[in-house]
């Protein structure tokens, strides 16, 4: 298998094409546009996550890749082949369903063998591959069991083995860990990534759990109302979101609404009614004076102090409104004079020699010139 895949990888590399191309794909159900002009390219052996809130069209996009739905318009190209019109049973793509969709009347081994049987492989080879898959997901002991005799985690592993058994060019995972409880989920995330990397398969997963996406995927697409808002690495998405939706969807953030007050080539100032002084940003942006802007500031970038900071810009005073104690750090909710509540994440180590600020205590917040992100939409 490794030989096969490296050959096609070489092919893809030679022609300079990405492995999977989704070109301007639209899907409408009646008048309802569920997937809206999506363009996406994915490289070989990527682990890619589609992240978005419920109803944003993630599953529909995935189902179009699997062939369960046909795009209203647009093309899907896998490894140089246009597969837009291929029926699901002819696509070199396998999917692991959110509900696992194991065949209840077949044993674990028969479930895994099902796909191989459809290819009419010789029995000896089927047996060998099933054996290998059972080994891979550590389910050898349970080969003869029926799905209803397995726990949720075990069912998930069988479903994964079944979708990997045919050595697909593309593996699709719809909420792969959605049915597991939180503890098992975190443990399984890394296991799953290791397995996928070990097998060396290109993988697209759908999730609405941002932690899961950040842990597992090399690249993430943020999807909202059928459109891809941003496609980038977990780090880029978190540090440099390109719109308010992404900034607020991934992690916690404080958003200040304002307008461009000073526009210089190497710095700008944003005047916000929420703050007493304009926000100073130590780089230029492209935009007209007076245009509406948003400034996103992550809680861990907000510095909390009792004394007024010496730096005059990028600070504000307020009182402690609420404290969420989380052990290693606490989230302070600071109420500014304007009434706006700012979240600040404060490490426990900051208060070594003095007691931590408490409710209603006056405090100052401050941040660096490059700590936040200017958003234009």
């Amino acid at each position, binding site marked *: 298998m490794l030989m096969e895949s490296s050959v096609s990888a070489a092919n893809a590399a030679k022609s300079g094409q990405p492995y999977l191309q989704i070109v301007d794909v639209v899907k409408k159900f009646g008048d309802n546009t569920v997937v809206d002009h999506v363009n996406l390219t994915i490289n070989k052996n990527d682990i890619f996550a589609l992240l978005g809130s419920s109803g944003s069209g993630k599953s529909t996009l995935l189902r179009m890749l699997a062939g369960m739905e046909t795009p209203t318009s647009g093309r899907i190209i896998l490894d140089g082949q246009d597969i837009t019109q291929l029926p699901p049973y002819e696509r070199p793509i396998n*999917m692991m369903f959110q509900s696992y969709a194991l*065949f209840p009347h077949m044993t674990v081994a028969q479930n895994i063998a099902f796909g191989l049987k459809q290819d009419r492989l010789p029995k000896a080879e089927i047996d060998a591959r099933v054996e290998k898959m059972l080994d891979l997901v550590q389910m050898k002991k349970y080969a003869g069991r029926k799905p209803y005799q397995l726990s949720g985690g075990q069912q998930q592993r069988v479903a994964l083995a079944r979708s990997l058994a045919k050595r697909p060019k593309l593996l699709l995972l719809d909420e792969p860990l959605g049915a597991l409880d939180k503890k098992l989920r975190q443990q399984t995330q890394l296991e799953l990534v290791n397995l996928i990397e070990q097998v060396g398969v290109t993988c697209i997963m759908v999730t609405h759990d941002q932690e899961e996406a950040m842990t597992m995927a090399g690249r993430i697409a943020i999807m909202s109302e059928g459109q891809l808002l941003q496609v980038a690495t977990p780090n880029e998405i978190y540090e440099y979101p390109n719109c308010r939706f992404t900034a607020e969807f991934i992690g916690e953030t404080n958003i200040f609404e304002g307008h461009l007050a000073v526009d210089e080539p190497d710095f700008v100032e944003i005047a916000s009614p929420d703050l007493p002084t304009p926000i100073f940003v130590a780089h230029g942006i492209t935009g007209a004076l007076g245009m509406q802007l948003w400034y996103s500031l992550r809680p861990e970038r907000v510095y909390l102090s009792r004394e007024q900071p010496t730096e005059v810009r990028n600070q504000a005073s307020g009182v402690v409104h609420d404290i969420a104690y989380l052990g290693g750090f606490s989230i302070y909710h600071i109420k500014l004079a304007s009434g706006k509540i700012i979240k600040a994440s404060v490490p426990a180590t900051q208060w070594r020699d003095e007691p931590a600020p408490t409710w209603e205590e006056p405090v100052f917040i401050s941040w660096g010139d490059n700590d936040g992100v200017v958003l234009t939409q």
Partner: protein
Amino acid sequence: MSQKISWFGKTSLGIGFFFLYAPIVILMIYSFNASKLVTVWGGFSTHWYGELFRDEAVMSALGLSLKVALLSSVMAVALGTIAGMVLARFGRFRGKSLFAGMITAPMVMPEVITGLSMLLLFVQMQQWFGFPEERGVLTIWVGHVTLCMAYVTVVIRSRLVEMDRSVEEAAMDLGARPMKVFFVITLPLIAPALASGFLLAFTLSLDDLVITAFLSGPGSTTLPQLIFSRVRLGLNPEINALATITVLVVGTLVIVANRVMARAEKKRRLLAA
């Protein structure tokens, strides 16, 4: 959780059971009556059972009824499965409600009308094509299939609708063509519904009198027809004996079927949990 049943509940339950089962129990008791008069107890005897098995008219009517019931229920299950698939899986298509309505019409239409309209059809067909030559097993069979198929379609359709479609999609995703998916995945999963549809069709066909009356010809008398005509001539403990056997056979079948269904249901529950 054990709940105390109030005296009112107990009484209503008792009355309910009495009305349901007392006639049957009386019927069974009188089948062991030595007297020829149904309403006069003349001592215990199994005489009428022997009489029943020697009665050739009853035996051939029973044979015909079983044959018709078996043939009709097999055909009704086959057609009902196809119709159920079309209604549950093919999405929306032109004339779908008309199709659904036509298929389930025999359930709501008075049987007299179903029987009469089919009789007219067969008479007309005979005039035009010379087929079917006469009314008999074939015409009864067609009539029963029409009736039973309506019920089977409803049973199978509702099972298909509540079934998790992703199991079928997974099979297709793994390379099975739609036909194969149907035979290897869908059919085994709806097997309990097929079985209950079959039993339903079998009993419906076995005790149908009205449609049969319109569609049967000379020499094709089913058991319900025979019983009906005999009873009109006067009650006879032999019929009681026949009824007792029927009740026992049907009762056993129902219990077995319930057991099988309950086991299948339990497995499904476990998997869903």
